[in-house]
Each structure stands twice: as C-alpha cells, then as structure tokens.
C-alpha cells in the first residue's frame, strides 16, 4: 500500500501546514507499515504536472495538500476515476466519487484564540496578517476577529485588531507562503503600531514573526501559531507561542488512509471541528501559569458553548 502526497509551495519542511499533513502519512507508515512518497510543488504550475507524475497505479491514494490544488485535483480525479484522491482544505460541490475533501472549521478554534488574545493583551491592540487572501486563510482571521469582538462585548473592553477587517475583507497579506523575512517585517509593523499579540496565518512565514518575538521578549510580543502546535514543531522558539490554533490534518489524513485500507473510502468531505477534535486550541505550554485562571475558565466555557452551539462563531 502506498500513500502519496503532493505539497503546496511551502515545502514539506514548513513546520506547519504541509508538514502536519505529511505527519499523518508518516504516522500511518509507522502504525501500518505502508509506503509513503511525496512530491514538493515548486510553483503553482507544478500541481498538475506533479499529480500526473504520481498517476500510473503506484499510489493507492494521493493526498493533495492545499486549497490551491483544488482545480488540479478535480481535473485529475475526473480523468482518472479509478484513482483515489484526498484534498486538504477543499470540498467539492457536488462531491466527487473518488475525492475525499478535508476541511476544517478553523474559525471555531480561532474564535477562542481571539478571545484569549483579547484577554491577554496589555496594549489593547492585537494584530494578524495572512499569506494570501483565500478562504482557508481568512477563516482563521475571521474567527480571530469575532473572538475579539465577543470578548469586548462580554467585558466591555475596547481591544482592537489590526490587519484584518471581516467586513471589508481587506487586510495585511504577505502574498506568499514562503518569505520568513516578510513574516518578521509584518510583525514588526504591527508591533510598531502597538500590537503585543500577533496571529500570522501564512504557514512558515509566521516563523519569521516568532524570530522577532524571540528577540523582543514575550513581554513585548507573543505569537499565536496556526496549523500545528508550533510550540512543538518550532521548539527552539517555542516559548514565544501563546498558543496555536491547530488544524489536525495529521489526524484526518491518518483517518483517510485507514478508510482506504479498510475499503470504506467514499467521496465527500470530512469536516474537522472543535467537537470532533479536527481543530483545537493547543495548550499554553510555557504560558500555563501566565494566563489568568479566570480567563482559562472562560475559555473552557466558551469551548463548550461553541460545541453545543450556544455561542455563535460569527459577527454579533
């Protein structure tokens, strides 16, 4: 049994997005002894070519990682009805028989992150920036923004968010998922404007922001990670991450492999939510003692509220 993966342009070693998905394959490799192959996309034009070079019957399932591979995956799936695909961050409507989409209600976790950030900021200003203005990115920023609003509404505070406005859908974007240096410069920009907590939603670009926080010290600047628990994937600078909004692609990828092996693969979509553990807020790690107990309690309640639907993740 061979599982193959095609990464997006950030590369397999991006410490976040692609790497998390690949970990799912690797875990399956350890657990079930399957073969694993990957192919990195260097550019957006590589998607189709990469899929093509994995066709030919060697791969039992092909994972395509990322929203931007949506079109290429769809075409390949249509041309090769016998080949199974699974794509992260994309759901087809109507669903395709041989493609299983994996999407995540990241806004649920981001909502909690926003609430947390609003509760933790000392300057009353938090910031965010994204890679590209695409739904899998902005859904983080939306949830984050609504979480802050929710906190403001609950506590009568006036915490502001720089870098994203859910209404105009305009904000700060690096326009790439690669430049760490941009990550640092964008964080510096937000810091200069008073932000002391920043949520970079741009894959490895956020590592650049972490470098800045590391230099300034966490009293000045904290970072909220995305995709993976960056405290663990970026251990050298783990202490700057207040928390991470995790998107358990490893778990869903693993699940998909299990389904294929069990013969229960069906086209459609898997949605990761707070409820099923597909998305979550990571532990505070080094900040465990720093986050006030009240706030921790509120977050626990908030989490329950989101899961049971009493708190709506959206504009209030």
């Amino acid at each position: 049994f061979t599982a193959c993966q095609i990464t997006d342009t950030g590369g397999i070693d991006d410490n976040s997005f692609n790497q998390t998905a690949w970990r799912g394959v690797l875990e399956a490799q350890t657990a079930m002894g399957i073969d694993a192959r990957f192919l990195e996309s260097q550019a957006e034009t590589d998607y189709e070519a990469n899929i093509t070079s994995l066709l030919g019957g060697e791969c039992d399932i092909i994972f395509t990682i990322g929203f931007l591979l949506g079109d290429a995956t769809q075409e390949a799936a249509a041309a090769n009805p016998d080949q199974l695909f699974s794509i992260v961050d994309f759901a087809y409507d109507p669903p395709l028989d041989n493609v299983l989409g994996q999407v995540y209600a990241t806004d649920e976790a981001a909502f909690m992150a926003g609430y947390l950030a609003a509760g933790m900021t000392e300057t009353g200003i938090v910031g965010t920036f994204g890679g590209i203005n695409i739904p899998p990115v902005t859904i983080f920023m939306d949830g984050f923004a609504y979480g802050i609003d929710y906190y403001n509404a609950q506590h009568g505070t006036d915490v502001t968010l720089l870098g994203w406005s859910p209404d105009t859908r305009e904000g700060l974007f690096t326009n790439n998922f690669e430049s760490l240096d941009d990550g640092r410069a964008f964080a510096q920009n937000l810091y200069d404007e008073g932000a002391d907590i920043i949520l970079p939603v741009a894959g490895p670009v956020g590592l650049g922001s972490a470098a800045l926080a590391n230099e300034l010290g966490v009293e000045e600047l904290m970072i909220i990670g995305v995709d993976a628990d960056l405290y663990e994937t970026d251990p050298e600078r783990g202490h700057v991450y207040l928390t991470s909004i995790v998107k358990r692609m490893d778990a869903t990828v693993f699940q998909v492999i299990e389904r294929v092996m069990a013969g229960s693969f069906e086209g459609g979509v898997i949605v990761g939510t707070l409820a099923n553990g597909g998305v979550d807020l990571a532990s505070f790690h080094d900040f465990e003692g720093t986050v006030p107990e009240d706030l921790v309690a509120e977050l626990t309640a908030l989490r329950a509220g989101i899961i049971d639907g009493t708190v709506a993740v959206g504009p209030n």
Partner: protein
Amino acid sequence: MSVNEALDTARDKLLERAAPGRVQFEDLVIVPLFAVVAALMIGALVMLATGVDLATIGRSYVALVVGSVGSVAALSETLVAAVPLVLAALGLAIGFRTGLFNIGAEGQILMGGLAAVIFGFTFANLPFVLLMPLSLLAGAVTGAFYAGIAGWLRAATGAHEVISTIMLNLISYRLLDYMLSLDWVQREGRADPVSRSVPDAAELPKLLEWLDPNLRVHAGVFLMLLAVALVYWLMFRTKLGFEFRASGASPDAARYAGIRASLIIVVAMATAGALAGLAGANQTLGVLGRATPGFSAGIGFDAIAVALMGRSHPVGVLFAGLLFGGLEAGGRQMQVDAGVSIDLIGIIQALIIVFIAAPLLVCAIFPWGFRSDPKGGAQ
C-alpha cells in the same frame, strides 16, 4: 588568361565555403554531450556529499532518464515543460543578438498569459478556429507591449533594460494579483486570486488525449516548432533580422548603415516580448486553462539559461529547451522514485551551462582532447 577570367576564378574561390570541420563538430556535439555527462557526475558527487547512498543515486539517474524519455507519458511531460521555455528563450535570444539583455521574460509571460485568458473567456462565444488563435495573439500582443515599454525606455531615455525589465517583472506580479481580484476577471465564488477559466474553444487542443487523458502534451508543440523556424528565418534571412544582428554586434556600425537604433531596440524588445507572451499564453491556454498568481513559475528566468545555452541560435535554443524540459520532467520522477529533491536539477542545469560556456575551463580540467584554442564565451 584574360583579366576577366582571372577575376572570375578569384571570385569563384571566394565563394567556396569551408566544410564544417572537427572544430565545429566538437563545438556542437561533443562539448554539449560532455557538459551533460560532467554535470551529472558532479551532481552525483553533491548527492554523495549530502548522504545519499550509491544505490539511490543510481536509482535517481535511472528515474531521471525514465521520467524524461522513458515512456510516452514522460515524453509528453518533457514537451509540456519544454514548450514555454523554448518560446520565451527564442525571444530572449533575439534580444541577446540585438545586444539587449532582457531579464523581463517572466513579466512578459505573466502579462501575455493573463491577456490570453481574459480574451478567451471574454469572447467565449467565438468558434475554436477564431478564439484559440486570437487568444494566442492577444497574449503575444500584450507581451510585446509590455516588453516594448522597456525597449522604449531604453531608446528614449537610455534607461538600462536590465534594470527596467527587473522592475517590470516585479510590477507584473502585483499587477497580476490586482487583475485577478477584479470582479470581471476573478472566478465567481472565489475570494482568492484566480481567474475565470477559458472555454474549451480557447484551449490549445491536447494531442494525445485519445491515447490517455493524462497525456498533457498539447498543440503548443507545433507553435514551438513554428516559432523556431520563424525566428530562424527572421534572424538570418530577413532585413529586420540583419538589422537586429547588426545593432547587437556593433551599434555604431548599425547607425552608420542607416539602421535606426531606437526603433530596432523597441522592435526587438517587442518581438521578444511577443514570444514570451506566447509562452505565457501557451501556459494558460495549453496547461492551466486559467490564470493564477505566479503561473509563470520562473520560466522566464530558466529561459535565460536556455537561451544562453542555445547560444542564442534558434536551433540551439530548441535543443537546450528540450534538454531543460527533460530534466524538469525527469527531476519530478527522481523525487518520486528515489526521494532525491528536484532542486538537484537546478545544480545540474547550472553546471551544464558552465561547461558549455567556458570551453577554456573544460580545457583546463581535461587538457587532452578538446581543441586547444577556443574563442571563449557563447553567443
């Protein structure tokens, strides 16, 4: 013997061409072959140095060959990769021969490709026989215009084309982002920068789809061959080509000969841009069916290497482009089969060019064999 007869014999003697000798053969066949082999050997050393074991190295080179020429699918992928490289490199070669160092193919590809897409979906009702050629034309014209800006700046103000084309590349990325976010360009229902798709009638038809739907090779191959022939004709058979080459070889002599240097600069840049624009249109109409950010994928830069390696000669460019295309397609297979990063291909490409462009270096490394008095440098 009369004076006239003497003149005639002298004349006939002058008309004799030297037969291609050992030197030319070495130059055109042995040296490139040698360069490829030497580059692959050094590539193997790099792999060794990074802890790749010998068996894997062997496997990766087998994969490289299989992935580039080992099957119909591989050949198809090689061609798909080669077509835009050759088209863009032909344009650059014209520039080099005209003394213009145009780094702007990347931007011209983007603008040309985008224009082709916009034309394609805007006039979606036209029949194939009109829509496809006209979309290509739109790409070529836009590329020509975009390159023409740099040409005009050079001709009118003396602004160096290296700088202006680098800047135009950077501008084109942003311009593309902007255009892709416009309502009438952006695909319905999408927030990310992706254009509407072109109708089938605008696409370059796939040539081998009947054999296997995954064979992506498309009619751009004919476009490429046509362009090679056309550029050859243009450069070496026409007045315009003579003007290009004269301006490039000696701007002062060209001026003396009554060639209007400014005009030639603009025309040469525009021609180069048209070819790059075609390369872009070829990517959007033949491969992607739409425009996304960065669909140029560095082809414009790789094309510089292809043009240099092909010594700015259309036929040389064709072979260099096929070689680079093959390396790219094979490189993918290499990563899949042997787990060796495709980035190795970049190293190999660079080394090939070094060995071709610096014969003195080859002589220094391998003092036996090769001609003793190479004239240094390509072009």
